[in-house]
């Protein structure tokens, strides 16, 4: 697998809301080979604090030259990133991990929550290209309209219709994405692509299990290295063992993982 450590230039900064930012980075090596579901490890500053890189999904590539990350400010690392300026350089490792596996013969359904929507945009774009005859379903959830609208917009630009859901009902369905899923006609050979908060992924996993659908989930864990060296990023699998989100994932067949009924 090809991976690179690169100083990449920030060519564009978009602020979607007070705490949601998208950066476009010039990185042909990475952008030209990245696959949907893969991620990068980003150094958020030049100093020793925060010490570790932060993982972000590749949320889109363009022309094989640029790629984007979309993130929410939740702590010191993302706060530093959000204060970057155009023209500055960021140190990036990537592309890392195994992405989504696509099959044009099935009904593909993308389910994203919050910042979990980031990798699904890349997936949606790829599906539109490789399976032009097979338009995927897209179900996206977030806290409110402010957070969701700009992301929905991106899918519209790909020509994809979106079923939105918000916690406060300010856009689309008032409630959970699983409520929306239940109402959709998903046939009997559906493949679900899910990325979002753990409770949401748990719910979608059980939903798919009950209906006999396949389900690919992208797992978020704490990561120190992103390349299989630290063994910190585990997710429990069957019979007491663990898989490594960075190298075995981040995308897993949900059936391989251990899920707790809540």
């Amino acid at each position, binding site marked *: 697998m*090809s991976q690179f450590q690169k100083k990449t230039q920030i060519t564009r900064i978009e602020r979607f809301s007070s705490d949601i930012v998208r950066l476009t980075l010039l990185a042909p090596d990475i952008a030209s080979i990245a696959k949907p579901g893969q991620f990068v490890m980003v150094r958020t500053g030049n100093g020793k604090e*925060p010490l570790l890189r932060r993982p972000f999904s590749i949320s889109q590539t363009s022309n094989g030259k640029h790629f984007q990350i979309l993130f929410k400010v939740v702590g010191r690392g993302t706060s530093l990133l959000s204060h970057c300026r155009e023209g500055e350089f960021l140190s990036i490792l990537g592309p890392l991990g195994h992405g989504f596996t696509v099959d044009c013969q099935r009904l593909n359904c993308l389910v994203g929550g919050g910042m979990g929507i980031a990798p699904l945009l890349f997936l949606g774009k790829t599906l539109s290209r490789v399976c032009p005859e097979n338009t995927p379903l897209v179900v996206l959830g977030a806290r409110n309209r402010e957070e969701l609208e700009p992301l929905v917009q991106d899918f519209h630009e790909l020509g994809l219709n979106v079923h939105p859901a918000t916690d406060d009902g300010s856009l689309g369905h008032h409630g959970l994405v699983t409520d929306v899923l239940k109402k959709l006609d998903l046939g009997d050979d559906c493949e679900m692509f899910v990325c979002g908060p753990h409770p949401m992924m748990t719910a979608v996993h059980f939903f798919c299990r009950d209906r006999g659908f396949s389900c690919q989930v992208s797992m978020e864990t*704490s990561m120190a290295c992103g*390349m299989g*060296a*630290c063994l910190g990023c585990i997710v429990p699998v069957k019979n007491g063992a663990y898989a490594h989100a960075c190298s075995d994932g981040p995308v897993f067949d949900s059936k391989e993982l251990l899920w707790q009924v809540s």
Partner: protein
Amino acid sequence: MASELNSVDLRVSIASLNLKNPVMTASGTFGYAREFEPYVNLHRLGAVVVKGISLEPRFGNPPPRIVETSCGMLNAIGLENVGVERFISEKMPALQQANVPVFVNILGDTLDEYREIASRLAGIEGVAGIEVNISCPNVKKGGVAFGTVPEMAAAVTAVVKENSTVPVMVKLSPNVTDITVIAKAVEDAGADAVSLINTLIGMAINHRSRKPALANVIGGLSGPAIKPVALRMVYQVARAVSIPVVGIGGIETAEDVLEFMLAGATAVQIGTANFVNPRASEEAVEGLARHVATESLGSIRELIGGLILP
């Protein structure tokens, strides 16, 4: 310039083992080396130390296993590893290709386990040395006691030494009142070198959830935060023993390596820094070469223990 740098003398030796340069990678932070091939020319490193190997495979601790702290990180991996048999059959072949001396870090819960692992590794092609981990804070059984009681540290050393065909380096725990006592005990028991420090035992708490940040509650602190403690212990141990000392703890750059060598280290290991900058080890080698060239040193060995006291 590049060719000039290739000709500078960075060689150091650990017992019978001659290393190209003093820069090694630390156990548990460099996987089985192969993970770093996209970033590092492995053959340019002094040596690599692989993740700790036990007799049987271990799953390790439940998540969360890592948490960041100020200029450091805590880990409680719990020694997840494939076990010595699968290590030999699955991991060694790739390492043999890599053209770099390999130290295998080993750990056990009993003397017998240490003996058994050492014998299985004896004679395996590509194993240049053994690093005996008597210091991992994450194993609840014998692990801690081996590293903190001089007699037990000596016993483990003797057992591994008897069953090994390559140099044996013993890795010391910093969580002791006087690390020189343990260092002298393992030297007397036949250790060819000591490496230090392993992680400091620490803890983090999430005040919102009121829970420990690690499922294992306590973990091992590493990174730049611990460098001053590591440097002090290397200084003390280097004055107390006459076998080579390998310095570990918060090393990121060639400058850090120079500091540890001045304090008395013959070689060093780079740990947590590999996560931040996968090229850290190779860049340290390059930096050392530049330093030796710029300062017109005959060899890097001139620096070992060269601290000028006030």
